[in-house]
């Protein structure tokens, strides 16, 4: 039905529906033979979801896939593998409790009369690791390797199958050094010569320009554009990735922030990563009183970790924090709350709410001691305070003793914000406050941010949505790979500047020198 000698796999109008969201919406995709097919899109654009369909990890809700002119359907990963499709996962999927050679040959075991042939495994592992220029002892436990080496093992697993036709690489370079990336590119070129097709997902735009042949852009689960890399420039990619629709109203500030004093200053903040490297790498920043400060960055750039350091969740951090012009020793979470910090966490369901408690208790949870008289709760005072917040934040609540899950996502989020505000903070840290709520509720949350900042509350907002952060923030720091790569203000706040800075810390070596 579908035949094209240059296309190894064709996806036709793939839909993937998860409860509540449509992750893929009618995406058609041609996987070109012996080419590096690049997929680009923001977080949540549907790149990884599409790849999971092709690798058989998940099944499309509707739509068809064709290989060699025949329709194919992959019930599980083994079906896809039988057709020669291998995948290197975004998150390492290794077994730290097993050795390197066991990891490489897991579920590809070589046997003699049903018994494992370990000498063949060790020999094979040595060979493939030599090819990757990483001669790790195959008997080492994978848990004892550093992350870059683990990534190489993950890649090696896919190279030992002889019938490989398609190799999907989902951000394979995220934890590799510049030298390791070079080796990987060499291997990729070898694979292309053997006629193997590669799908390459990466956030490092420079890398894509170097290794890619053809690029396909997804946005919000939809196909946007595709082109040959030789025909396009970086700007074209950024423009298509971000899109031009949805504009938010930009707030005007009555406070003169140039004259406002600094309430918080962070100097030389480092946070070590297990397995080497840094989650936060010499971050310097400040926050003024009454300011709305934006933190922009890609997934894993260290944004949430910054908040966690400020809230006392990472005692292993180093660096200096000045609060109200005094050097502050970051204590426990309770200490930080008492000092005037409050956080609206990223994951509302897991970190923000206690689902078994009612609306009122969820709101007052962080400030219960304020309502205790001689150690006993004063429910009248608590209820009055909660009612006050409900009024102030316009939370649509029929009865505050109802379960928290009876509210819509937007109103649940407002309850989490109310919880933060009830501790009477001086600094409010908001991690992705608009995630998973509808557009109306988003606007209301932004209005709350604006209103409280006008009253003098200092707010730091993390967002990965460009349009949003540009609308609400007075000033933006961009984090990239743990480093602070830009401080943008006023007219400098542009999509292009934000996107470029968000890739700047991902060193392929080249742009680090610049």
């Amino acid at each position, binding site marked *: 039905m579908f035949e094209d000698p240059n296309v190894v796999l064709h996806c036709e109008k793939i839909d993937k529906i998860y409860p509540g969201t449509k992750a893929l919406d009618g995406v058609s995709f041609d996987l070109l033979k012996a080419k590096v097919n690049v997929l680009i899109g923001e977080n949540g654009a549907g790149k990884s979801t599409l790849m999971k369909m092709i690798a058989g990890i998940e099944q499309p809700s509707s739509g068809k896939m064709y290989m060699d002119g025949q329709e194919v359907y992959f019930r599980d990963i083994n079906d896809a*593998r039988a057709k020669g499709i291998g995948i290197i996962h975004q998150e390492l999927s290794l077994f730290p*409790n097993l050795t390197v050679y066991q990891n490489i040959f*897991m579920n590809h075991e070589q046997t003699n009369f049903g018994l494992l042939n370990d000498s063949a495994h060790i020999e094979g592992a040595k060979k493939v690791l030599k090819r990757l220029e990483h001669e790790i002892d195959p008997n080492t436990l994978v848990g004892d390797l550093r992350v870059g080496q683990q990534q190489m093992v993950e890649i090696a697993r896919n190279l030992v199958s002889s019938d490989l036709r398609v190799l999907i690489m989902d951000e394979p370079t995220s934890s590799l050094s510049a030298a390791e990336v070079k080796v990987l590119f060499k291997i990729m070129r070898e694979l292309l010569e053997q006629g193997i097709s590669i799908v390459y997902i990466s956030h490092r735009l420079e890398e894509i320009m170097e290794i890619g042949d053809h690029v396909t852009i997804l946005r919000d689960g939809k196909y946007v554009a595709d082109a040959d890399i030789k025909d396009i420039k970086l700007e074209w990619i950024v423009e298509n990735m971000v899109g031009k629709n949805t504009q938010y109203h930009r707030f005007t500030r009555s406070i003169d922030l140039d004259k406002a004093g600094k309430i918080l200053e962070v100097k030389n903040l480092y946070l070590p990563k297990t397995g080497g490297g840094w989650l936060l790498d010499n971050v310097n920043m400040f926050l003024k009183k009454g300011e709305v400060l934006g933190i922009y960055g890609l997934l894993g750039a260290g944004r949430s970790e910054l908040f966690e350091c400020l809230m006392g969740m990472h005692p292993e951090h180093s660096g200096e924090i000045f609060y109200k012009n005094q050097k502050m020793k970051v204590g426990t979470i309770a200490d930080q709350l008492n000092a005037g910090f409050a956080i609206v966490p990223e994951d509302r369901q897991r970190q923000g709410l206690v689902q078994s408690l009612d609306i009122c208790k969820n709101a007052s949870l962080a400030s219960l001691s304020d309502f205790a008289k001689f150690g006993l709760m004063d429910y009248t005072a608590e209820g009055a305070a909660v009612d006050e917040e409900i009024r102030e934040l316009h939370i649509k609540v029929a009865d505050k003793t109802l379960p928290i899950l009876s509210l819509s996502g937007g109103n649940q989020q407002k309850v989490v914000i109310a919880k933060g505000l009830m501790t009477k903070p001086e600094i409010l840290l908001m991690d992705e406050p608009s995630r998973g709520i509808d557009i109306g509720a988003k606007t209301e949350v932004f209005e709350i941010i604006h209103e409280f900042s006008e009253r003098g509350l200092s707010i730091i907002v993390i967002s990965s949505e460009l349009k949003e952060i540009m609308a609400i923030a007075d000033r933006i720091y961009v984090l990239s790979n743990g480093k602070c790569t830009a401080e943008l203000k006023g007219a400098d706040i542009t999509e292009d500047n934000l996107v470029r800075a968000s890739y700047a810390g991902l060193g392929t070596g080249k742009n680090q020198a610049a």
Partner: protein
Amino acid sequence: MKKDNSQLIMTLLKGRTFIVLILLVIFFSFASKSFLSLNTLTMVAKHVALYGILALGMTFVIITGGIDLSVGSVVGLVGMLAGGLIQEGLTIGGKTIYFTVPAIIILMLCIGCLIGLVNGLIITKLNVAAFITTLGTMYICRGLANLRSGGATFPNIGGFEGLGNVGLKALGANWLGIPAGVYVFAILSIIAALLLNRTPTGWHLLAVGGNEKSAKLSGIKSDQVKILAYVISGFCAAWIGLINTAQLSAAHPASGDGWEMNAIAATVLGGTSMSGGSGTIIGTIVGAFVIGVINDGMTMCGVSEFWQKIIRGAVIILAVIIDQTQRNLQAKMALQARNESK
């Protein structure tokens, strides 16, 4: 110099269970004059085989990150079913059939596997926690064991010459001076070690216990692997049901009560991690010997049953504490090695 020291400590820690076993044997041979006699050692071996075979099955289950509390009750149920078949036969439609002993053994092993299969299916397909599932089947099997005879014992498992079902007692006798159970333990240990170390299935068990998500992404059918572990555990428990009945020359519905705890203790003492992903058969065997030697040694020294329990509990907790220490030390040494290679 310092590195040499830590390496020595490492070696000692790795072989700790074996060292403890030797120390225990030395201690008890001084504390009780009759401990190092042939009779005593035969008795200890007989008991070790009972805990050991259960612990073999338990090792597979714990490696996948699960637990099987039902094995003690399976011992009781299998014993009662076997005893009943020999003494009363099976009555269908007014006709009573008597099975031969080999047929009974095969039937009972199948029943053990079947209980394991039910455990595994409930745990994997219905997503019930392993602890709860096997706690449930533990009660159910114990109840069934009592129901079989209304709580009474089957006193005659010797069989009747005329019915051709004589011979189960051989499983409780000594062959060439060594209890039959010890032979079964040895054979099952070899099979278990081969399965775990030398077959793809062994890798899959370790993989599922180490990181189930990754195992699934590698195309391993993790549900099947887990179910297999419970089937093996049920199979081992059925062997003990038969051997124990043969040793006692009678089937009693309370047999095997609490033995699952001895099996878990032996497995953990042998270095199998309760969080899954690591464990060895040889470790479990040594662990079973430690449990056996402590139990019989203390009895021979006249330690009261009450104190025995306290000491057993302390030994188990101590073993896990040492296990954690070893892990921390190992991690520290790996880090040190990494820094040196820089």
